[in-house]
């Protein structure tokens, strides 16, 4: 009996901890006449890592880009449905993309630092949000670089151009840049696909660290990566969610035969 009660307590605690941050409801998206996302429904919990896997062209990149509305940079895009971010629909006309993207940051496939110094790259975010005090900027830059596990490598050359860094360091710089604006959610669109294995592992470890403070959505081609870093995994196929499950289950005993075929490399 006591055991049972403890179990229940643990369950409610887990529920409280894992409040739904991003709630996608019947999201449909078209590129011109072509439908790229069909009735997507996914819930992402606070401080959890959600991985999105699927073959090329399955819509996973389109989906993650619709979470911060970057997808709308393509003028052909048409969207129906809702994505509730902390109970507000991000597609509502009163919700500015600038406000949304301050809350939902993004790390891109290819490291894309600005052609500026390391310091200026990280200070860019606070600057555009109106922070001018040098001291405060210094603090933010240092904290962001520390959180991105890059500080020790670059603290003596903050004024050098960011393009002098290695690919892996550049990607961590981009993560630091995203952290500088303290978003709630970090979207990562295949963040390691351009990196070597060691840099990849460093980023993966970083994701585990960041999970303490951020909700993370990561699109990846690398299924082992999804299995290693995520708490839950969504398998996309032809613009639909085939299976959304906790990662261990999805990779050891998936419910859907198409998921099984994909993760065991039998197609895709």
């Amino acid at each position: 009996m006591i055991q049972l009660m403890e179990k229940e307590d643990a369950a409610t605690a887990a529920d409280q901890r894992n409040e739904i941050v991003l709630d996608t409801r019947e999201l449909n998206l078209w590129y011109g006449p072509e439908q790229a996302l069909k009735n997507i429904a996914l819930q992402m919990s606070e401080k959890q890592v959600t991985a999105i896997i699927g073959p090329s062209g399955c819509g996973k990149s389109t989906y993650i880009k619709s979470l911060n509305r970057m997808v709308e940079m393509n003028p052909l895009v048409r969207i129906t449905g809702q994505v509730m971010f902390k109970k507000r629909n991000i597609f509502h006309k009163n919700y500015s993309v600038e406000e949304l993207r301050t809350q939902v940051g993004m790390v891109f496939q290819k490291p894309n630092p600005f052609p500026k110094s390391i310091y200026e790259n990280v200070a860019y975010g606070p600057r555009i949000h109106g922070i001018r005090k040098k001291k405060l900027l210094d603090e933010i830059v240092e904290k962001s670089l520390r959180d991105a596990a890059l500080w020790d490598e670059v603290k003596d050359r903050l004024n050098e151009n960011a393009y002098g860094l290695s690919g892996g360091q550049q990607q961590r710089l981009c993560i630091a840049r995203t952290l500088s604006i303290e978003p709630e959610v970090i979207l990562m669109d295949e963040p390691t696909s351009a990196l070597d294995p060691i840099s990849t592992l460093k980023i993966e470890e970083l994701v585990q660290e960041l999970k303490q403070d951020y909700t993370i959505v990561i699109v990846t081609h690398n299924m082992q990566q999804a299995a290693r870093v995520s708490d839950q995994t969504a398998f996309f196929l032809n613009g639909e969610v085939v299976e959304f499950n906790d990662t261990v289950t999805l990779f050891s005993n998936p419910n859907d035969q198409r998921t099984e075929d994909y993760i065991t490399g039998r197609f895709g």
Partner: protein
Amino acid sequence: MPTNRQQFDDQLNTLRSALVEMGRKVEEAILNSVKALKETDLDLAQQIVDQDVEVNQIEEKIDEIGTTLIATQQPVAKDLRRILTAFKMASDLERMGDLAVDISKVVMRIGNDALIKPLVDIPRMAEIVQLMIAESIQAYMEENVDLAYKMAKMDDEVDHLYSQILRELFVFMVDNPKTVNQSLLLCFVSRYMERMADHATNIGESVVYLVRGHRPDLN
């Protein structure tokens, strides 16, 4: 199934046929060991001991292929379960092979002494155990969960026969202390066979795990 991992699938098939072959050899060893006991055939007993090496070799081969596949192919889901199952089954079968060897050694101990009684229950037990092994292997080949459950049910019968044999031999030992030596050896034989049935049940569990992804308790 559409497939673009031909080499991997070929290797998995190799694993599978190795298990089937191992099962066949163990089945034969068990059948022969009881036959040697019944007929006090020392040559046959020796042959069983010698042939156990082959069973061990197959187990090593299965371990090797499985390890290589895990290291190189990053198997997940059913592929991973297939390999884990192969490890577990090979280990169960190898234990069964050893138990057949143990029975053969009992045969050699008894040597050319006359049996204290004609054996009835022990050969019956051996028949059931052999059937269990055959069916467990078949269940594995067909990935037939129902057959695995049905096979595991036979374990009850084996347990029943086991306690019956123990009771009978106990009576023998009490009546005639001269038979204690052979009676004890026969007790061991029936104990070995009861263990075999447990291993066969384990194989049944492995089959269920392979197909469904969770391991039931069939004992």
